[in-house]
């Protein structure tokens, strides 16, 4: 079966700020992502890039500002000039528009690869078991793991686990896919197979937001690179601009250390 990804996923991040115990992690970040765009977020560790990513699917609540996907606020509802906090059920429904791939895969270890993938579509009553399995097999084939459907995560290599995690995130056909350092927990020789899968997703219509340290990969797949430090967007533009001719001294400093 073919996997159709809708040409949607306009993400509006406006004046988002967030503090942990008085330490500001994000201070007034604004960012607009066009539908189908591939955006890489770069920045030193502790710069707030992961936190920013997690505000997009409301895993992290914001202290100020807002995030909207295709005009729908994340976590809140706009009625009569007020913002109402959404009930859990509605948060979940909006969240399914956003898929997420974690640094440490977070596959469910007690479920096989295919059970990991069918869990959400079945839980949300989107598909019956047979259709969900068919979809899952298609997705596993797409990430090159059709033969591993009945393996448990422990029986897979890190690269294979992350590919299953990507298939799991795709099962809900999200408009936006978030990658939180998807290759940082992998042995060097396994990085390539995961990047190959992400590369294939670029240009299929889903908006991809990737937090990564793989500068070469960012240069190759991104439509836009965003450099963030101490909770502020310092610079953004095409890979050639930001990576080739960085304007801000901190960007130059960062690139010098990672390249």
């Amino acid at each position, binding site marked *: 079966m073919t996997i159709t990804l809708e040409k949607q996923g306009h993400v509006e991040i406006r004046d988002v700020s967030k503090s942990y115990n008085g330490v500001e992690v994000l201070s007034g970040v604004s960012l607009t992502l066009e539908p189908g765009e591939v955006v890489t977020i770069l920045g030193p560790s502790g710069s707030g890039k992961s936190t920013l990513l997690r505000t997009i699917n409301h*895993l992290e609540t914001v202290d100020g500002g807002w995030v909207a996907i295709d005009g729908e606020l994340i976590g809140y509802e706009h009625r009569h000039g007020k913002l109402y906090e959404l009930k859990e059920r509605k948060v979940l429904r909006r969240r399914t528009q956003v898929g997420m791939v974690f640094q440490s895969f977070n596959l*469910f270890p007690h479920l096989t690869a295919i059970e990991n993938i069918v*869990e*959400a579509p079945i839980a949300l009553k989107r598909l019956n078991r047979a259709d969900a399995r068919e979809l899952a097999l298609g997705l596993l084939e797409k990430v090159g793991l059709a033969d591993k459907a009945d393996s448990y995560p422990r029986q897979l290599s890190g690269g294979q686990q992350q590919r299953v995690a990507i298939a799991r995130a795709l099962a809900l056909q999200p408009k936006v896919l978030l990658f939180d350092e998807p290759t940082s927990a992998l042995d060097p020789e396994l990085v390539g197979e995961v990047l190959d899968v992400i590369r294939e997703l670029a240009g299929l219509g889903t908006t991809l937001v990737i937090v990564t340290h793989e500068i070469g990969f960012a240069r190759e797949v991104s439509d836009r690179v965003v450099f963030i430090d101490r909770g502020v967007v310092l610079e953004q533009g095409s890979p050639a601009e930001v990576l080739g001719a960085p304007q801000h001294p901190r960007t130059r400093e960062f690139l010098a250390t990672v390249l």
Partner: protein
Amino acid sequence: MTQIDAKRGLDTVAERPTRPAGAVDFGALPVVRSKHWVRWILGALVVFVVAQLVWTLFTNAGYGWPTVAKYFFSDAILRGLGMTLTLTVVAGAIGFAIGSLLALMRLSKSPLLNAFAWSFIWFFRSVPLLVQILVWFNLGYLYPTIGLGIPFTTDYFVEAQTVTLVSAFAAAVLGLSLNQAAYSAEIIRGGILSVDAGQLEAAAALGIPQARRITRIILPQAARSIIPNAFNEIIGLLKGTSIISVIALAELFYVSQVIYNRNQQVIPLLLVAVLWYMILTTVLSIAQFYVERYYSRGSARVLPPTPIQRAKAWISVQWNRLEDEPSKKAEASA
């Protein structure tokens, strides 16, 4: 041992390659295993002590095995056994159900629910079980009647005598299950805490509803650390039901007491009770092995073999050895 060493020497003599004089081929030398003298002496001591004890089991008439056999399947004992099992199952089920709720309350973001659950656990762990059961049994002294009515008044719509409402059985179930709830709450909470936070996050990111997140993602993983402790608790509860004898409820231990008070065969009747407790504990221990094995799927690359599988493997190894032995001997002599 020496035979094998000798054979090893023989086997390898034939394969030994020609070497320059003076050089030693270590790979061809027989290995002499080190001897563990202390281990052997202590082992012999243990065997002696056990043998001595077993011998007294058969020779000491005080055990009264004929009496044990006479009462083991007697109606009174079996009825008592039934009561013990009923109490264990009912109090265990209620205890773990309330315990799960308390565990979730303890983990909830509501400070009120959290404080309530904490206080419940604190209270029921503080008061000795024996005292709890006596209080429930004598609740009538404290609240002579129990009824439904207007809150904080004594205007009742329905009212009943506490003594008729809280029978000995009800007091036993109340005492055992509330006490069990307090302990199992902590075990379940510990199990849930042992699950990596990333699991909950991944489930939330996938939009899986909260209830299903708990039942399908968290609890099956928490079960791995809950199960061993839970079986400890159930076995403890099974034997703990003997405490109910203080309110004269006819469970296994009380029944054997009644019988030996009548016929003075104290030890044989205690043995009857003990043997039944041992049988039930054995059954629970076997069940534990299989339940643990079920929940360990995914955590080990290969599941550990069951005792039956292990026995089969051992037999087939021994069988192959028997079949190989004569042919090897033939080779060696040739």
